[in-house]
């Protein structure tokens, strides 16, 4: 009889122990966040919210922490264009191109900056470079053909029109 009581006591104690362990309060949660990611998302959000100065400040802080973030640098360039700071934007795109001369998105940023400042000759050169980097982009080639045509450079425009028409 005593043996049975001991067995039951052991079983009940084991069950109670499992219950106590499973019902123990969960550990206090305190998650860490990545400061770079926070700055990037904060900068993007501020740009979307129309707070360009705040966005630029956050992008600059992020790039101070890690200057290799070329995507962020290009985004900063576009925010600067939206804020009307075209010269600063151009500078950021040039830094991005210095790191990667074949960065098509940075070339597009420079193209936009040149278009805004009406630097026609430089605009044409950059457009030509973009067509070279992205030969299958018909819209860019068409734009280049039109620019050349409008400047009376018909022979050069003709080459691109032939490509566009698949002749």
């Amino acid at each position, binding site marked *: 009889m005593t043996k049975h009581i001991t067995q039951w006591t052991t079983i009940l104690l084991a069950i109670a122990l499992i219950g106590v362990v499973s019902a123990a309060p969960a550990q206090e*949660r305190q*998650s*860490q*966040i990545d400061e770079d990611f926070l700055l990037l*998302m904060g900068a993007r*959000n501020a740009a979307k919210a*129309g*707070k360009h100065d*705040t966005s630029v400040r*956050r992008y600059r802080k992020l790039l101070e922490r890690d200057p290799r973030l070329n995507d962020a640098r290009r985004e900063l360039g576009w925010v600067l264009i939206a804020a009307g700071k075209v010269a600063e934007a151009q500078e950021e795109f040039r830094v991005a191109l210095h790191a990667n001369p074949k960065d098509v998105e940075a070339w597009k940023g420079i193209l936009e900056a040149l278009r805004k400042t009406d630097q026609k000759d430089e605009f044409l050169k950059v457009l030509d470079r973009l067509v070279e980097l992205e030969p299958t982009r018909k819209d860019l080639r068409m734009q280049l053909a039109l620019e050349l045509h409008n400047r009376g450079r018909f022979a050069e425009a003709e080459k691109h029109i032939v490509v566009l028409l698949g002749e």
Partner: protein
Amino acid sequence: MPKRMNSIQLIRNGWFIGTIGLLYGAAVWSGFQWIYTAEIVLERLEQAVEAPDPAAAMRVYEQIARSRVRRDDLDSFVKLGQVLERAGRADEAIEVWRRVAAAIPEDEGLRMRLALTLHNAGRYAEAELHFAALLREGPE
């Protein structure tokens, strides 16, 4: 003639005790299933590889969101926020993250989730308040 057992003998019989134990276990298990139905469905929705069914997510939301957010038991709410986001119910997910972040204001990760969900829902001005707080920026 078979011998009849009195009640003491019946209780001492191992089969009787075993049957009662099994019935008790089944009752406890059924009760657990009944009480935690919403949590069980939520667990399944969270573990599903494909995007959760929005209707199922909303049913769970309506059941769980009624309860109070407790600091020491946030798991259900965190899972609920994630499931609602994946089910495309941004407004409800924002409400969940807002409550969770209010329950533990010092947890920056939760506030970040709220800010990101607001951002992804296109509510940039509201998200901005949280990003500014997380970046410890003063008023402009």
